[in-house]
């Protein structure tokens, strides 16, 4: 069969715990920041943190960092297509 997206990479316990703590810290950060008024930026900052958190989950918990790159490519494709959905729809609503 063709290239193997399955790896037997073992993420060590300590690394998993580090990731977990990082995610908890980011959660704390996002809640704290939510009470500071950044005006229009509030939502962007919240989403930015969410993106960072999800990248960590995808890379470590979901093993994307260690698996075949094709999965990452596909995921990017999915995100691009979703961005197209949002972007073109906003072309309508933002410019009405």
């Amino acid at each position, binding site marked *: *069969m*063709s290239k193997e997206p399955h790896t037997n990479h073992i993420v060590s316990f300590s690394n998993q715990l580090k990731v977990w703590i990082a995610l908890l810290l980011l959660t704390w950060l996002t809640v704290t920041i939510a009470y500071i008024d950044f005006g229009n930026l509030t939502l962007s900052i919240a989403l930015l943190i969410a993106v960072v958190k999800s990248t960590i989950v995808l890379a470590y918990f979901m093993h994307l960092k260690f698996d075949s790159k094709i999965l990452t490519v596909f995921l990017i494709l999915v995100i691009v297509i979703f961005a*197209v959905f949002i972007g073109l729809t906003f072309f309508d609503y933002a410019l009405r």
Partner: protein
Amino acid sequence: MTENNSTASHISYLEETGGRSGIFKWILSTDHKRIGLLYLYSIATFFIVGAALGVMMRLELMNPGQQFVKPSTYNSLFTLHGVIMIFLFIIPGIPAVFGNFMLPILIGAKDVAFPRVNLLSWYLYVIGAIFALSTLVFGNGPADTGWTFYAPYSVNTETNVSMSVMAAFVLGFSSILTGLNFIVTIHRMRAPGMTWFKMPLFAWSLYATAWIQLLATPVIGITLLMIFAERLLGVGLFDPSLGGDPILYQHMFWIYSHPAVYVMVLPAMGVISEVVSTFSQRKIYGYKAIAYSSLAIAFIGYFVWGHHMFTSGMSGPARIIFSILTFLVAIPSAVKVFNWIATLYGGSINVKAPLLYALGFIFLFMIGGLTGLILGALATDVHLHDTVFVVGHFHYVMFGGTGFAFMAAIHYWFPKMYGINYNMKRATSAFWTIFFGFNVMYFPMMVVGVMGMPRRYFDYLPEFHIPNFISTIGSWILSVGLLMMIGNLIAAFRKRKKAVDNPWNGKTLEWSVNTPPTLLNFDEIPTITKGPYEYHEQ
């Protein structure tokens, strides 16, 4: 049928019962070929039902005034016709029948990656179909919204829209699973040496299609779920009286349904590539261009949904963007047509029924595509949007396109699938009847559309009479042609004239296996060294 091969020990998949008897050897089998045939029989049944509904609509429209059904019945008729033809025939059509049957053989595999999921997707298809048809019996009659289920009408009407959208939801799930299966199959199960650019173009088109099925279908899933919730719980996501926006529904609907058009037509193009190459005995012209254009169509197909909404109240800039993107998606399709024509050049053309259907496809699809350009242009779309012109255009693309490709495929692969031959003369005359009837039926729709007759009309102004009348006559001719074709194929089972392994001298892998194939397709998984269309090696 076993002894038609050199080695008598080959037992075809049709004889391989897996220890089951009666209907169970079908509905419990995970063999991709049996599942393909399960789909074929169910899809053909719904095609006939849908076509009958279409003929009834044409009868009602034959003359102005009420002919034989009430307006509300007519509205349910065209909705049911749309739902059946779109969700039960044309979307699953080619991938689920011929994709399931042929894809593993074409890439040198024993089956798809997830045979049980494959069977599950057929069951989902059946459940969806039962949901769709149950509206005939339960609730206040079948939905009367049109297959588009536009809000807020679909939220307000008393007919059984909830069941119909659930049907579409379940069918969407079935479609997703088929697509998922094909992608994994193509990635993981190709025979040794079967590189991406040694794959037949039908496999390429299925791959491109599978990605659309996978990434567009969930959008309609969630949209229909919202309509369902809106009807059931009154949550009002699209109902303006509750703060919602009906145009957002249209966006969501077409985000799926435009790419879905390519789910319908891409595999058809794949079939045509195979048939044109085989019957010209030529390597397909511009193999890579066709392969890439499949991917290009699939990708750009996500960008153009707004052209269904030019008169909906969408913002001006969005209309312009969507129009220009729509024109760009026409180009890969044009490239494919040129490549097919170029493949004919210099060939040794064997004019048989499958090729006739393929050439019919090219002609009718061109008309469908070119009228699509008229609809893609802003000025003309304002005039023609939601008129019968759109109905004509759509049927040229979908029936003249995908429908003809489906018929090309069944005539092309029939001997391989069943190990028997049909009567070629009758197949040819059926083709000409269908081709003639098709044009008589659908061309007048374009004319009456340009005159200004809106679609989904139960009754019409007297000036629209003549084209409607001709169109109805055409529907009879077309029906006769379809019956001739179906009758001819069924008659083949009574005559049982044995087919040889490679009746058309094709070069793709399915022609090198037994007729009909064995359970595991290959005695031994082949190692691929040549491209799929090597006709010129000697």
